[in-house]
């Protein structure tokens, strides 16, 4: 073989290697925007937060993520606002939009991965696998998914144990604005977490979150009231809550059983849900006086 052809082959090989390297670079997104609190948590759980450059308003955990620019509410994203942070990949929870914005982003050749929102253990595992695939972290995501699935079934098993054959009826109250109780019905995140923690949702008459008639709340007769923790003086707020005419006759008010948990932790359906189940289960069935 002549020196020339050897040089030629070496050079071609070098060129191919460089191009391949370049292609891999182009395929691995390094400027990622996440939309949806649980999606962002999964990115952190996979230790890929260095690739995050912006997040939506609902992504507030862990604390460091709030230092990133906020591109607005998940369903009202602005096309130029999102493009201004120069993302190469957007990982968004199902329902992010509006569709016009998503179309523009796709036409700008920004990668877009939609993550389904399902309020169950399987739903969380699916989220982790999809986010992991989008991040090119298949094996790590598989390990995380396995661990989260194990944690979830352990937490659920422990929760079932704690129930001891006497499940409690739980009323999730989203808000009490203007004296109206907005409660969580079927097919809501609240319904999912209550069932996983071994409780019974006191409300089965409707889907999602709706304001309830006072008498219907009384008839539902919850043993426990579950609410989101918004900070502030809980003692006074709880007292006021239990003075509401609709709640006074309920076992929950009689026994003063009000459980408050961080909203994203409780309803996020992400990697921390196992700990939310344990926390809720302990609050429902733990040592009481």
């Amino acid at each position, binding site marked *: 073989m002549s020196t020339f052809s050897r040089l030629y082959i070496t050079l071609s090989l070098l060129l191919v290697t460089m191009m391949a390297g370049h292609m891999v670079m182009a395929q691995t997104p390094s400027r990622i925007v996440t939309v949806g609190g649980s999606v962002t948590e999964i990115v952190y759980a996979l230790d890929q937060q260095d690739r995050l450059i912006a997040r939506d308003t609902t992504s507030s955990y862990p604390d460091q993520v709030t230092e990133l620019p906020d591109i607005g509410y998940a*369903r009202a994203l602005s096309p130029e*606002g999102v493009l201004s942070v120069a993302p190469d990949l957007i990982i968004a929870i199902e329902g992010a939009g509006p569709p*016009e914005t998503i179309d523009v982003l796709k*036409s700008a050749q920004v990668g877009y991965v939609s993550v389904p929102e399902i309020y169950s253990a399987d739903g969380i595992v699916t989220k982790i696998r999809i986010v992991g695939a989008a991040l090119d972290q298949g094996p790590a995501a598989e390990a995380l998914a396995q661990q989260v699935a194990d944690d979830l079934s352990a937490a659920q098993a422990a929760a079932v144990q704690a129930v001891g054959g006497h499940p409690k009826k739980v009323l999730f109250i989203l808000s009490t604005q203007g004296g109206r109780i907005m409660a969580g019905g079927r097919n809501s995140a609240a319904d999912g977490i209550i069932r996983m923690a071994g409780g019974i949702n006191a409300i089965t008459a409707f889907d999602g979150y*709706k304001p309830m008639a006072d008498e219907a709340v009384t008839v539902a007769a919850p043993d426990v009231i579950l609410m989101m923790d918004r900070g502030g003086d809980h003692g006074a707020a709880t007292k006021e809550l239990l003075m509401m005419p609709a709640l006074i006759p309920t076992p929950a008010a009689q026994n003063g059983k009000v459980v408050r948990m961080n909203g994203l932790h409780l309803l996020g359906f992400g990697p921390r849900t196992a700990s939310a189940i344990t926390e809720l289960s302990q609050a429902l069935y733990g040592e009481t006086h």
Partner: protein
Amino acid sequence: MSLAVGAPSAHAPPMDRRVQARRLTVALSLLLAVTSVFSLAWGASGTSLWGAMADLIAGRELSRLDRIVLFDIRLPRLCLGILVGASLAVSGAVMQGLFRNPLADPGLIGVSAGAGLAAITAIVLGAMLPPAIRELTGNYLVPISAFFGGWGSTLVLYRVATRHGQTSVATMLLAGIALGALAGALSGILVYMADDSQLRDLTFWGMGSLAGATWAKVMAATPIILAALAVTPFLARGLNGLALGEAAAGHIGISVQLIKNTSILAVAAATGAAVAVSGGIGFIGIVVPHLLRLATGPDHHSLLPNAALLGATLLLAADMIARVIIAPAELPIGIVTAVLGAPVFLWILLKRRGALGL
């Protein structure tokens, strides 16, 4: 009631006012041109209009990102802003002239209530439509519904208020209130049925935005709005005459019923299209005509074109604020126009109170 649009010669010699108004038209055209350029140049991303123009002049290819930001985001948004702003302001001016009421806005002929109800219906119940229809309308189910909803309710109101070929403006006003209440109640039922994410969509729709501007929306709204605006110059003389009252206007040879029909049609078309593509944007229709009446008087010959120019300019300015103030997120433009518009409106009120000795 007729004070706000009082007799054209109340304050200054008419010639003087006419010259003033013409100068204002020139000034407003320039202002709109400058605002348009800034609207193209200003946005959350780093894309620079000047850089892109230099590239184009030098014959260089624009980057894909610059091309999308300029031609698929900012330019349709600019066009939509001009169309919607002009529609809302001119519609407001026409309505105030027709109803001889300084507080009149397109809401009075039911177009906003109908459009709102139809939009809410589309948001909440859209998923129940047969797949074939959803396929056909795609992302545009809400704007299409809003447009036809606005039209439908205006037609109902017009039929209610018209007897023996005569439309009673007073009946229309009262029936409009009743229809508005009914639409509000039906919307309430749908709001109750809506799930969380639909509720957020409803809230954002009600606050209005130009963020969803696409060429498809511009193409759909342009012919309707331009046709409606093109009719309005022919209404100017009639609306001036109506300031004297319907009977007097009839006596000086104005065909009052024709003016009413044309005004209602034009406003329903322009507002219906504007609301459909941008949601609920308040205050432009009230503030702009009043500012202009203060500046150059109530003559509709100059008021209507100037309202189109100033309305477009103000909406573009409000949109620029909406899209950069909390970038990379974005404020709904209805918030900006209300925050800017409400104090201006109060100021007009205070000024008028002095002038009227109330």
